[in-house]
Structures are given as structure tokens and as C-alpha cells.
């Protein structure tokens, strides 16, 4: 029997935390409660979790800081923000700090459970060994396992999301993928306020892999559709 997935619930509102605990338990997960980021950090250090449900407004260290702290330590656990704030800036900040998804209170239970499942599905995909581990682009080499880029300027690290986008495009090389598909696989549905975010990531990636980012040879725009990646033939 597969071990239960551990979900750390960081929520200072006792009732909400209790409701989440009951539901996640009924879904077959193993929920753990923390009423503050400090407590969550202690729990995390003792025993990792497979996913974190994180409130933004917490007493003491807030959810965004805690998320930033985990990412700084190189922890890649999926994080789903739960918050009463629902302005676009708040969403963007949450996702920039390294959150994977964002749900505003009050939320729909079924949607929450679907997001949790979706995050686990994406996590499984991200953790599985990529069919192609090294991508080569005109003298640059990207390692999708180590998240590194080796090029004429030396070695640098890729952001996780950048590596994931490249991997998704590489797995379906030559095929045009639309922005919604990319958002869905990399962030989860509705997580980002706009598909412009994908465009920004693509611009960033072009600077990394294209010899001339203004005239891309590998990472191409397909008008009215999305993006596709051309790979050099393996030697």
C-alpha cells in the first residue's frame, strides 16, 4: 500500500484549519496542523511534507516570507496559498515568492481538493525522470535534472519554472503548445492572472538559449497558437 501523502496546513484560524484537516483526512491524506509559520518551520525540519497549504496573513512571520524561506533553502515542495486577499498584486507576489497555486477565501471545497490533486499530479510529472535530460542549443547545454545552463559565459542556474517550461516543450518537441496548456501544466489552472506571464518566461528563456534572442532559432512563436521548441538532432 502506498504511504499516505503528508499535507502541512499552516493556518492560524482554528476553525478553517480544523475543516481542512477533516476533509483532507477523509480524502486519504495525512494532514498536519501548524498555527504559525514558526511552528510550521519546526514541523518541517522534523519531518517533511508532500504539500503545504499556506495562509498568507499569519501572526509573526507571514505566509509569503515562509514560502520564500523554504525556496531559499532549496525546498521544492508544492505550496498552495490560501488567503483572504484577492487583488492581482497579491496573487502575483505569492507566485513570485515561489508558490505553485493560489486560492482565495472563501473557497469551494471541491475546487480546493481538485487543486491539491492537480499539484500532486504536476509534482509527480516534475519529479519523474525526464525522457530527455540534456538539451543542446548552439553551444549551450541545459541539464533538466540539475537545472543548470552551461554556455560560453560559464555555468548558471535556471529557475525551476524555466526548466519545467523547457522540459514540457522538449517532451513535445516540434509541436505547438498554447499558453493555457503551459500554464495548466506548470502552475495549475487559474493560478496566474494572465497568459502574459508565459510570454515573459519565454522572453527570458530566449535570452538564455538563443544566440540572437531577437531572431529565435529554437524557441519559436507560432502565431495564434503558442510556442514550440525545435531541438538539434542528437549527435
Amino acid at each position, binding site marked *: 500500500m502506498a504511504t499516505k501523502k503528508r499535507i502541512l496546513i499552516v493556518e492560524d484560524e482554528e476553525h478553517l484549519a480544523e475543516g481542512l484537516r477533516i476533509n483532507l483526512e477523509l480524502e486519504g491524506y495525512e494532514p498536519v496542523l501548524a498555527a504559525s509559520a514558526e511552528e510550521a518551520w519546526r514541523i518541517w525540519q522534523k519531518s517533511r511534507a508532500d504539500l503545504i497549504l499556506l495562509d498568507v*496573513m499569519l501572526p509573526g512571520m507571514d505566509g509569503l516570507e515562509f514560502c520564500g524561506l523554504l525556496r531559499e533553502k532549496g525546498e521544492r515542495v508544492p505550496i498552495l496559498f490560501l488567503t483572504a486577499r484577492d487583488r492581482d498584486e497579491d496573487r502575483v507576489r505569492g507566485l513570485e515568492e515561489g508558490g505553485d497555486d493560489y486560492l482565495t477565501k472563501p473557497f469551494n471545497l471541491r475546487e480546493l481538493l481538485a487543486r491539491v490533486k492537480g499539484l500532486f499530479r504536476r509534482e509527480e510529472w516534475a519529479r519523474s525522470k525526464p525522457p530527455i535530460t540534456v538539451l543542446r542549443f548552439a553551444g549551450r547545454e541545459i541539464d533538466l535534472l540539475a537545472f543548470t545552463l552551461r554556455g560560453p559565459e560559464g555555468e548558471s542556474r535556471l529557475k525551476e519554472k524555466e526548466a519545467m517550461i523547457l522540459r514540457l516543450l522538449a517532451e513535445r518537441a516540434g509541436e505547438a503548445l498554447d499558453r493555457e496548456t503551459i500554464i495548466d501544466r506548470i502552475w495549475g489552472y487559474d493560478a496566474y492572472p494572465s497568459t502574459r506571464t508565459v510570454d515573459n518566461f519565454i522572453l527570458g528563456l530566449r535570452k538564455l538559449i538563443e544566440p540572437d534572442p531577437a531572431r529565435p532559432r529554437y524557441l519559436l512563436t507560432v502565431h495564434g497558437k503558442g510556442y514550440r521548441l525545435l531541438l538539434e538532432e542528437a549527435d
Partner: protein
Amino acid sequence: MRSRRLLLWLYLVFLVTILAQGIWWLVYLGREGRHYLNWQVQRLQTDQLHAAHLLRSVPAFQADPEGTLAPHFPDLHFARTPHGYEIHIDPGMESAIRVETARRRRMFLWEGGFFLFLLLAGASMVFVAYRREAAFRRSRELFLAGVTHEFKTPLASLSLYSETLERPELGGEQRATILAHMAEDLRRLRLMVEQVLAVSRAESPAALNPIALDPAEIARQVLADLAPLIAREGAQVTSALPAGELVRADEPALATALRNLVINAIHYSPPPAKVTLSLAREGRWLRLSVRDEGPGIPRREQKRVFQSFYRVGEAGRRPAGIHGSGLGLYLVKRNLEAMGGRVELVSAPGAGASFSLLLPAAPRREGG
């Protein structure tokens, strides 16, 4: 944000322009004063030359210049010498011109300075009003964000619980816990609605109706209203309220303030809470105090407790189970200020807290 910065820039440009205008005005007037002096001196010298010419060329004038020429040149002085007449500029005239020039310069300086002062005063008044408006808008936004959060939290838990109750696999004990939590969330929502309404009343002082009230009577009513809470929490409330004192206050505003203080005193004390109400006259003021023997409030937090949505021990030390609205003490302060009174807090960690409502005393009741 961008428009605010643009506005600030425009304002700075405006201020600099005004200052430059003012300074230019002063410089210009100073120059005008000098011109006036030179022009007057030149006018007198021209007159002098003119009169000398007339004296030389018209024989009729030479006989009696004082009778014929002098009336036409009031600023010149005709002096008889052995060689004939000499024409001088009246020495009194020169100093009169100097005095006049100085007077003009003084006048311009005062006028310029006065207008500059008016402009700068106006500009700074606009600036202060703008700053005040911005601060007000910011506090409104914070208040609204706080209210939204405080409403959304119990709503989120109610919505989660109501969906959870639909699950057939839920156990009986879990169901009972959920129902109890839902009842508590509803109580919390009702308290929030009441407090927000009370804030909107407190923020329009015109809605207040201060009359002479017996504070002891109000306190007794508040304690009677809170009897269920006092009984549930096992709190011991003692009161020393001398009869016969009157304050000028609005009844609902005073009752709300006092109720919030008593509720806080009970909630923030370890059970069983010991709360003391007292009333004392201090000159023109009446002091109505609520003292508890709870953990007290650290000095650095004493000012902030009166802000909306601030709670003591927010940084992880908030006693479990306290669900205030975050508006209680804010309301106390607003209500008291709206009635011309104030709130005082005396507290030290470990030594309890004493909140005092100070209100203007009304003349004592006859025979009271």
C-alpha cells in the same frame, strides 16, 4: 500611484515658480527704487540747467529771478552773489527724495513679502490638506482591508463546513464539532456586523446626542447585558460606582465603549477573570475605569491597541480562542473622542490593565 507622483512633481514645480516669482518681484522692485532715485536727481539737474539757460538768455528774468523764475522751479534755490545769481538744487529736496525712495522700497518689500507669505501659506495649506487626505484615504483602505479579512475568515470556515457536512462518510462526533464551530463563526459574524455599524455611527459625530447621563446606571445596564458572558466565563466583576454623578455623553456610544472594555477584560484574563469597575470625579472630569488582573499590555503596544485591527500578542502570543472583531478598542477611542472625552490606559506586563474613560462631568443631580 503614478498620478500621485505626477501631482507631487507639479506641486513642486508650482512652488519653485512661486518662489522664483517672489524673488524676482523683490529684485525688480529694488531696481525700480534705484531708478526712481536716479530719475528724480536727473529731473532736478535738468531743471537746474534749464533755469540757468533761461536766466542767461532772457533779460527780463535777470532783473528779478526770484519773482519771475522761482515760482516755475519750486525745487530750485536762487542765490544772489556778487557776480549775479547762482542756481542750486534745494538741499531739503535731495533728502526728501532719499526719504521718499526709502519709503517706496520699504513699501515694496512689505508688499512683496506679504504676497510671498500669502502664496506660501496657501501652498502649504494645500499641501497639508493633501497630506491629510492621503493619510485618511490610507487609513480607510487599511480599515476596509481589515474589515474584509475579518468577514471573510468566518465566512470561509462556514462555507467549508457547510460543504463538509454534505459528506456521507462524516462521523457523528465530527459532525457535532463542526456544528459547534459553525455556531461560533455565526456569533463572530454578528459581532463584526454590530461593531462595523457602531464604527460608522462613531465616525459621524452629528449622529451623537450627548445628554446628562448617570454613568453608574449605564454601567449597571452593560453588566446586566453581559450577565450571560460573565456567567459562562465564571468572571468575578466588582463595581464601586458612587451614585449622583452625571456625565455628558451619548448613551449608546458610552455603553458600547464600556461593554467593549468589560468584554476585553474578561477575554484577556486567565479564567476566572477578576474585573473591577470604578467611578471617580476629577475636577471637571469623571473617570470611569475598568481594571483587570490579566497579563497586562507591554508599553510599546499601549498606543497601538487603539488602532483598528490591532491585537495584543498578534505576534504568535495571542491567547488561544480569542476572536475579537479587532475593532473593540478602536471604537472605544472613537466614541470617547466624538463625545469630547478620552481614553487612558495604565498597564504593565504581569500587573493587569486599567482602561479609563474620561468624560466631561455634568452638574450634579439635585439632592443626589
